[in-house]
């Protein structure tokens, strides 16, 4: 039965059919699958399958990324309330869009992927000043500050990632907190993330999830 559920779920996600995906999950629950199994045996593997599929498949489009992330996040969130024991959390991330930028979607997708990968995410919203990224990261004890910027001037400007880097340096937090960035301008120029002082970037939410998990793990072992 599980194989069939996994296959149907993966297909629904691949076809960006959210209703179908939820139907698969609801049927699975009705047939006695536990919430834990839905998350760990269906949803997370699906994200992982999508990860490898999408990295191999340059054709994957925005709707697929979004749906994978969104469906995964929604299902996970719903299932978490049904968990018997709270799950183990890998790490914590504060995320927001750069100052002057109101494009919230990229952030949402990244959040969805992180949640489905058991990373705790604090959403700071849009148009977030550099100072706030840092104070909130300190407040929540975050491992990573994630900054989304969809426009050239918010990605490269003085008030975005550059300023966050300067503040971390000033406060001696550079070795504790990593900065990751993403959004259209970074996709056009794959070296841009270095220029603005970030530790990593990713072209899409699924890659972002992997990159951030890797960074957190590397930070915890070093």
């Amino acid at each position, binding site marked *: 039965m599980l194989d069939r559920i996994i296959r149907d779920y993966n297909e629904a996600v691949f076809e960006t059919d959210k209703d179908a995906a939820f139907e698969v999950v609801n049927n699975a629950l009705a047939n006695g699958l536990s919430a834990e199994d839905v998350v760990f045996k269906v949803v997370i593997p699906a994200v992982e399958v999508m990860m490898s599929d999408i990295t191999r498949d340059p054709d994957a*489009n*925005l*709707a697929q990324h979004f749906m994978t992330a*969104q469906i995964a996040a929604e299902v996970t969130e719903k299932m978490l309330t049904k968990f018997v024991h709270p799950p183990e959390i890998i790490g914590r991330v504060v995320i927001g869009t750069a100052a002057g930028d109101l494009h919230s979607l990229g952030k*949402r997708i990244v959040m969805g992927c992180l949640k489905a990968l058991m990373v705790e995410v604090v959403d700071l919203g849009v148009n977030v000043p550099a100072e706030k990224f840092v104070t909130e990261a300190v407040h929540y004890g975050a491992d990573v500050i994630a900054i989304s910027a969809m426009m*050239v001037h918010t990605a490269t400007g003085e008030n975005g990632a550059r300023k966050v880097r300067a503040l971390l340096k000033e406060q001696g937090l550079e070795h504790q907190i990593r900065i990751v960035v993403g959004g259209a301008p970074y996709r056009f120029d794959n070296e841009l993330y270095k220029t603005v002082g970030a530790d990593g970037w990713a072209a899409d939410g699924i890659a972002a999830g992997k990159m951030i998990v890797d960074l957190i793990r590397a930070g915890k072992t070093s």
Partner: protein
Amino acid sequence: MGIAQVHLTVVTPAGEQTFRVPAGTSVRDALDLTELRVRAACGGSGGCGACGVTLIGGAVTPPTTAEYMKLQPAERACGVRLACQMRLQGDALVRIDDPAPPSQWRSIPPEELIPSPGALPELPQHVYGVAVDLGTTHIRLALWNRKTGQRMATRRGPNPQGGFGADVLNRLSAAHGNPARAAELAKLARTAIVQAVRDILKRDVGEVTPMLKEIGEVIIVGNTAMLALLSGHGGAALLDPDHWAGRIDCQPTDRTAFQAQWFMPHATIHLVDSVAGFIGSDLLADLLATRLTDGPAGALLLDVGTNTEIALWDGTRLHVTAVPGGPAFEGVGLRNGMAAETGAIYRVCRPVSADISFETVAGTPARGFCGSGLVDAVAVLLATGQLKPSGRFAVSPGPDGFLLDPANLCTALFSQDIDTFQRAKAATAAAMVALLERAGLGWTDITRLCVCGAFGHRLDVANAQAVGLLPPLNPACIELFADASLAGAEIGLLQPAGAAVFAALGERVAAINLAQVSDYDDRYIDHLRLRPIDINRKV
């Protein structure tokens, strides 16, 4: 398409080209729409004699009196004709030994123009006027004799700021904090406009400098970013979301220098104020041209372009917004994208037998897709099942992309092009829904939908409906306008009330910033799917 189409083949020192044109068109008018123009120094009256071409053969009208007056008998014996006098009755072959030097400017096809109103301003002098639609991708303008109400000529050409980025923000960012660069961008647009005017004066009037002095007004409409870059003022405010609720001042601070640069000492240069944030005065011009607010509630206007603007008339207020439709609809940002120029695939037909067929502008070999061709291609591939509603190809097309014509690499579509298309159409459709919601209306309340901008007349409405770009309303409610912003600027130029008409419209406007509409992003994702918009769903 009532008028029969004929083929005009032109041989020049550079080679041979064939164009498809409506029968009855003069050779000059036909070529004025292309990059291959004849020489000319009058409005095509037969007065200058500059437009000589050699007729090799074909079905054309006999020589006119003007041709007898302007051409030597020896020339006539060799087949020399005046291109502005000779009309095509069937296919024809002509030779042009000395075409006009290459230029970016072309005439706007007359069928795209909207007639302008009857009442004219009282003018003792400086009777000429120029109406300009300053677009991100294209500049369109028309020269008028405001006294007689005669449109002398029109031009369309690329906005040369494109080198600084296809979209508005790249250009604003380039100018931001860099006065030299800002000046350069302003100069590019200013020079382009005056060059187009000069091109008209040279080719359609025959006199340049004296005529520039006769121009009494230049009225310019455009999106806020274009106005700011032209004037060199307002760009910084536009980059800051805190300023978007209200109107951003984009008036030039160097008016005298501006007039001097243009050699138009008597011209009032009038930049029509934009509405709010990125919502420009080109939208006001569209509203004037389509008379949207003269009709009943439930009228929607969509100006598709790099900066797509939308207005919804609810009977008392105009709800308006701007959305980054993305340059895709103007053919920019696709691997094989291009403007609707010679060789652009503008229509793709559903296969009757096995192959997909398509038509290009002027019927020349395909060089790429313009916006309407892209909409058609997506709709046709969706109908044949080669593209799935998710936007993925049923079978991955491989490194050369999906070729409409296997023998022509310029006809390839790539997965990324489809993704770009989906984003642009989703942003647009979701924005229309957001406006409906704000006005408390539903799709079924819409009785009129005016589609202006990039697609022109060429958009296939059924295909746009099938992919979810336009709502599946009764096609009789949907009207296509090719050059509405220009027409609106023309109204402003000619009305006795002048540019005050814009201000009056502006008063009725309620602007919406989609970034503050909480469920806009959910709608956007919903609309990514290639499927008809559900008009019965409550918005």
